[in-house]
């Protein structure tokens, strides 16, 4: 399958899941599942930042337009994520071991580094998202709590979800 088609199908899957399932769950204000973050995290090490920014913009604006909330909220957070994606990977992985086709996963990065990767990216995304959603000083206390709860939940959820896309062991 051509890689761009694969990315596009993955894009549709995450977009539809977010709009029709996860945005419509009523889990209270402290839990907001954002599995679409994984869409941007699954791009290979060698993927260039410019097209990744376009993918980030596309999935962000798709989710914004599919919901009834504020336009630009997910777009902005996804763009920041696309921008830092490469830098985070580089800080976690040595250049010598850099494989051009490798996809970030538990298998290629190892447990601790993969969770650090997911954790850092999710936190950056959430900081941008929650501060843009309600930037008034009145809400700082509860926003930090929301950030921590949603962040912890999404890190575990996205790590588990990543097994569906990259298997733990090489097949055969």
């Amino acid at each position, binding site marked *: 399958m051509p890689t761009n088609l694969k990315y596009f199908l993955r894009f549709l899957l995450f977009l539809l899941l977010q709009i029709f399932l996860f945005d419509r769950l009523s889990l209270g204000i402290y839990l907001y599942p954002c599995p679409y973050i994984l869409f941007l995290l699954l791009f290979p090490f060698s993927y260039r930042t410019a097209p990744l920014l376009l993918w980030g913009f596309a999935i962000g604006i798709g989710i914004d337009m599919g919901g009834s909330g504020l336009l630009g909220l997910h777009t902005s957070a996804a*763009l920041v994520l696309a921008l830092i994606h490469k830098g985070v990977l580089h800080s976690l992985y040595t250049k010598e071991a850099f494989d051009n086709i490798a996809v970030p996963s538990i298998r290629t990065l190892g447990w601790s580094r993969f969770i650090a990767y997911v954790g850092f990216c999710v936190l950056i995304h959430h900081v941008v998202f929650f501060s843009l959603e309600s930037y008034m000083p009145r809400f700082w206390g509860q926003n930090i709590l929301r950030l921590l709860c949603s962040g912890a939940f999404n890190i575990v959820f996205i790590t588990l979800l990543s097994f569906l896309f990259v298997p733990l062991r090489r097949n055969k």
Partner: protein
Amino acid sequence: MPGNSSLLGRLYVLLLYILLQAAAITMLVRNSYFQQSFIMRGIHGIQYGLWEKSANIKNYFQLRSLNRTLAEENAQLRNRLSQLTDLESLYRSAMASDSLTVRDRAAFFYIPAEVVHSTTQRQNNFLIINKGKAQGVRPDMGVICNKGVVGIVNHVTQNYASVISLLNISQRISARLLPEGSTGTLLWPGKSSRTMLLTDFLQHQNVHLGDTVVTSGLSAVFPPDIPIGSVSGQAVKKGIYLDLDVSLFMRFENLRYVTVAGQRYQDEIQSNIEQEDAY
């Protein structure tokens, strides 16, 4: 870094990022403007229709409880109607020489609508209702239900309208505390879908637990004296003002039938306000 190791490559990425991020922030800041754009109108046309279908399926399973709520509301309205009919006849006899009738003088008209889609878990919650421009709904009209205030119409399409919910951190409405009747600003502190905060309330009044909060009628968006909720916590002093926790009478989670309240003289009031502003 293969691909963009050169300075020019990095600059290109940075410029692209700034461009896209600027577009995102512009949409965020001028949200209501972009919601009415050509593209969004097309998307809403499809989306709202889909939501209405799925709401219809969901509501089918709640018919019994909905029926009960409607019957209760019917009874309340009948009582109110009988009171008002008495008043009207009194009024008519007093104004026998006047050519205007009571009906002509009513400042508000009402359009019944159904909720097609709503959120309660975000910080900026919205509802979509199934009446729009074609049925006379316009932006800035108030939306109420039998148990209180729902929100204010944000933008309209041909047959649907998007309503900024009371549960939206950027929403402010003017409210009055009974029995003394002094006013304050009601806002949502973003936590529970059942509590609001009454702020800018002058300190020297007596406040008791359970006092009722109603709409003030000062804003010309909502009719006056619609019950919203009751005082549920101790007052907190903020300078010369008090902050009061208000527990809502309404449950946003299973809201189905609402009423859009249109101010008959909205244009006239608006043009007066603009004239005042001009001076």
